[in-house]
């Protein structure tokens, strides 16, 4: 038992978090920044945070993640990090030649109250920013929110720093894809194109953190949202923000500042949420949904009908980010499953409300456990008290899954020990198909492993 000290009895904890179900803001900001073409993310603080964030992203994506740091030492911590950041900006443009630098703060620079906007201005005045190059920034104190908040803050930083309005509509729809995998971003673009809608999607990490092998290391691979497109986002027809927690702020800013009307939807995971996305796209651009999309949907629903018997009333525990959990739980419900325990580390009471609405609508015959913010220690204790048939969550869940002998599907961040998440989507109808396949296989593999000889079947 690897988690052998986790007792069944649950005692209230007020101060101690054990096995957190979230991490800190800057990593989300770094990830979002990588979704701009030619961007070098910069972490304003001590070098440890940057090293940790780069390592974690690298372990998850198995691709190079370049980012620089202000390398604070004691002096900078006391007197402020202006000198460090100005020097860093000079060095980055000289040595790594990015199109744009995206600065985010850390706990340290936030606590001392460094004003990165002012420092970026200073760098400009000092002539450290070459002609045509850009700096954007955001504040990401880790003692507020989580990695999801950091992602959202950097998205906001992008539109604040780059979006413009010329008064001439560009005929496009902005799509903010949320804190999802590069494969998901790719799929969102593919679906939009299928519907026949021209989009500006940002950030777009596809092709950046799952870049091809070329025999050359390119710090700025082909992918990423172009700066020109980000500028143009103020001229778009509308913005569709996927995921309240990770995307709403950027969309609302464009709405308030440039009158680009926005809609905030769930991440398109599962049938219902994908339907809503397609429908919103259709309306925003005034187009008809082509049969090819309806056919993809039909193939998914067909599979759901074919396999519903294996999902019926199967209990599932889910842990992850709020934006992911809402549509994932809905998909589980659509499959006839019973979501039992749901934990997110990211604070926000709206989450509980959304969950409760969903449960009421599904008319579940029991009340699921929901923790917001909660941790994976609590999740494990809940599972000990009320076992489940499936766990959906990030790699750290494997310890619970092993101890309790429960099948598990890896989803969310980080996934450190399996392949696939960054190349195969879990959004859209195709993504739902993949999720369903993973869930079903995990449960049936266990059944095969454990069934008696006489009950061992060739056909399911």
């Amino acid at each position: 038992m690897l988690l052998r000290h986790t007792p069944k009895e649950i005692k209230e904890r007020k101060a101690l978090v054990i096995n957190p179900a979230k991490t800190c803001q800057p990593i989300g900001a770094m990830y979002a920044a990588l979704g701009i073409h030619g961007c070098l993310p910069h972490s304003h603080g001590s070098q440890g945070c940057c090293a940790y964030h780069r390592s974690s992203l690298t372990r998850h994506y198995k691709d190079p993640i370049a980012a620089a740091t202000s390398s604070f030492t004691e002096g900078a911590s006391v007197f402020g990090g202006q000198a460090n950041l100005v020097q860093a900006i000079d060095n980055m443009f000289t040595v790594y030649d990015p199109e744009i630098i995206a600065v985010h703060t850390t706990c340290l620079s936030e606590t001392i109250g460094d004003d990165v906007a002012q420092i970026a201005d200073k760098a400009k005045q000092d002539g450290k920013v070459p002609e045509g190059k850009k700096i954007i920034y955001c504040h990401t104190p880790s003692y507020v929110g989580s990695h999801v908040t950091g992602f959202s803050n950097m998205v906001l930083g992008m539109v604040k720093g780059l979006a413009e309005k010329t008064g001439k509509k560009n005929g496009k729809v902005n799509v903010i894809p949320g804190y999802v995998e590069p494969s998901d971003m790719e799929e969102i673009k593919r679906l939009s194109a299928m519907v026949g809608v021209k989009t500006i999607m940002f950030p777009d990490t596809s092709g950046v953190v799952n870049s091809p092998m070329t025999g050359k290391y390119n710090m700025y691979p082909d992918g990423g949202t172009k700066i020109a497109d980000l500028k143009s986002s103020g001229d778009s027809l509308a913005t569709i923000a996927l995921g309240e927690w990770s995307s709403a702020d950027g969309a609302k800013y464009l709405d308030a500042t440039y009158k680009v009307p926005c809609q905030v939807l769930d991440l398109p995971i599962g049938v219902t949420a994908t339907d809503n996305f397609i429908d919103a796209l259709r309306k925003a651009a005034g187009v008809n949904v082509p049969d090819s999309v309806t056919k993809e949907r039909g193939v998914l629903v067909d599979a759901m009908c074919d396999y519903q018997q294996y999902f019926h009333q199967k209990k599932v525990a889910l842990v992850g980010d709020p934006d992911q959990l809402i549509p994932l739980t809905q998909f589980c419900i659509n499959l006839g499953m019973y979501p039992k325990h749901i934990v997110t580390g990211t604070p926000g009471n709206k989450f509980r409300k959304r969950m409760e609405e969903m449960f009421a609508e599904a008319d579940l015959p029991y009340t699921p456990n929901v923790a917001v913010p909660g941790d994976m220690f609590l999740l494990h204790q809940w599972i000990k008290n009320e076992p489940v048939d499936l766990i959906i969550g990030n790699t750290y869940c494997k310890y619970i899954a092993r101890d309790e002998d429960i099948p598990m599907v890896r989803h969310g961040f980080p996934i450190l020990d399996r392949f696939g998440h960054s190349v195969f989507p879990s959004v859209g109808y195709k993504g739902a198909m993949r999720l369903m396949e993973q869930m079903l296989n995990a449960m049936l593999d266990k059944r095969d492993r454990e069934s008696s000889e006489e009950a061992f079947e060739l056909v399911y």
Partner: protein
Amino acid sequence: MPTKTEEYMKKDPTDFKEEILKKYPPKVARKRAKSIVISKGKESDGLEIQANVRTIPGIITMRGCTYAGCKGVILGPTRDIVNITHGPVGCGFYSWLTRRNQTSAPNPEDHNFMPYCFTTDMQDSEIIFGGEKKLMAAILEAYEIMKPKAIALFSTCPVGLIGDDVHAVAREAKEKLGINVFGFSCEGYKGVSQSAGHHIANNAIFTNVVGTDDNGKEGKYKINLLGEYNIGGDAFVIEDLLDRCGITLVSTFSGNSTYDQFATCHTADLNAIMCHRSINYVAEMMETKFGIPWIKVNFIGAEATAKSLRKIAKYFGDQELIDKVEAVIAEEMPAVKAAQDDVRSRTEGKTAMLFVGGSRAHHYQELFAEIGMTSIAAGYEFAHRDDYEGREVLPTIKVDADSRNIEEIEVEQDPTRFKPRKTPEELEKLAAEGFEFKDYDGMIPEMKPKTLVMDDINQYEADKLLEYYKPDIFCAGIKEKYSAQKMGIPMKQLHSYDYHGPYAAFKGAINFYYEIDRMVSAKVWDLVKAPWEKSPELAAAYNWE
């Protein structure tokens, strides 16, 4: 065809150095120039390298922070201490199970807290009003649930800034709970690299735990192994090897380690140091306080392992032990030789580069040499000059402001526990036979003349190195892995071993040879370019024509 090694030796590395420095702003170039030297092999006396200085802002470094060195590296591998990170969630989260320190608790009911991450997950109100109360509450909650024999507290950057006193909280908790609770001021901004964190960790363990329990293991030849962290099970093979030689391992610092091992380590008669950087001062302090001499050993590489075992045996000087050690070496060597012979045709003459840690970049060169590969460039992430130039430069190293931040503890002879392990005559005799205590020559003199040594190498320099020399294998950490591989160069992670291992001792050496053989012979690298990229001309030649 000349081998890669021969090709390298024909080039002048000063050209390369000039080329990379050209791109930097002048101030940066001046600073980096001092951290890049060219080894003269054994003749490297007086060759000075700049090390343990601040990282340059904006220059993408491989380094981590003091907290990472303290919590992640030193305390991380100890299974029975509850480690609470005091700070916002991130620092604790990232150091949760990511270093691969394996551990093996003998019984299912024995404490093993390593799969758990404990953090105070500070929120903005605590940043404003102080987090000591929350920390105290967290300790009590952790004790209530886990009932550990010790709890350690780690400060992160914001904690240092707002001035929470983890040591005061630790003292209070210790009194309340009656177990050992101790804190570390290991804020990430202290010091210039992880190295400061090792120092802080070791100091606190030395002050709070070492020598608190006199009931050590029984045994004829008792040693401690220092600076071994049990990545991929390295410690397990070393423990097994020592056991077979009849050597008793009282404690390891800190692979597969426990609280009791630290508490009883002063009962050993010899300290054997693997990673000189992370722990040499602990050995020094133990010598002063308890009279335990120390030697440098290395269990990476079959030859190095044999040499280290012989050195330990010689120290104890008993024929029985000497014979046993020889018997074990004789037993192990045939398999090692067979593996070397097997891979050699595919590895001979090939080149490697190593940029990691504070000893791995040195130790692993032995393994490469054993299969005929040359390390043409190497450097440390967080070393000091002595790790490069040898211990004799210690007195000449200037203590700068960043090093002064790290507390040095005053150690005196323990009035009851100090006992010299050897008489002056015995020491003299050993010295006359060429036996060296506290010796470490450093990496530079042990590299081949003309090879490059670079401290705190960064992303840009690493890319240039790879482009310029196209080594057959590059060794560094996770952050560097995929940029190298994008160039079609196999990259071996030497912090985490790419989730493989063990690589220590004889069995580990064999694992390593085959692993490197696999990597340099992998077929997939031939596929990097598509056929139409290799020969883009459009001369059509259809089969049916």
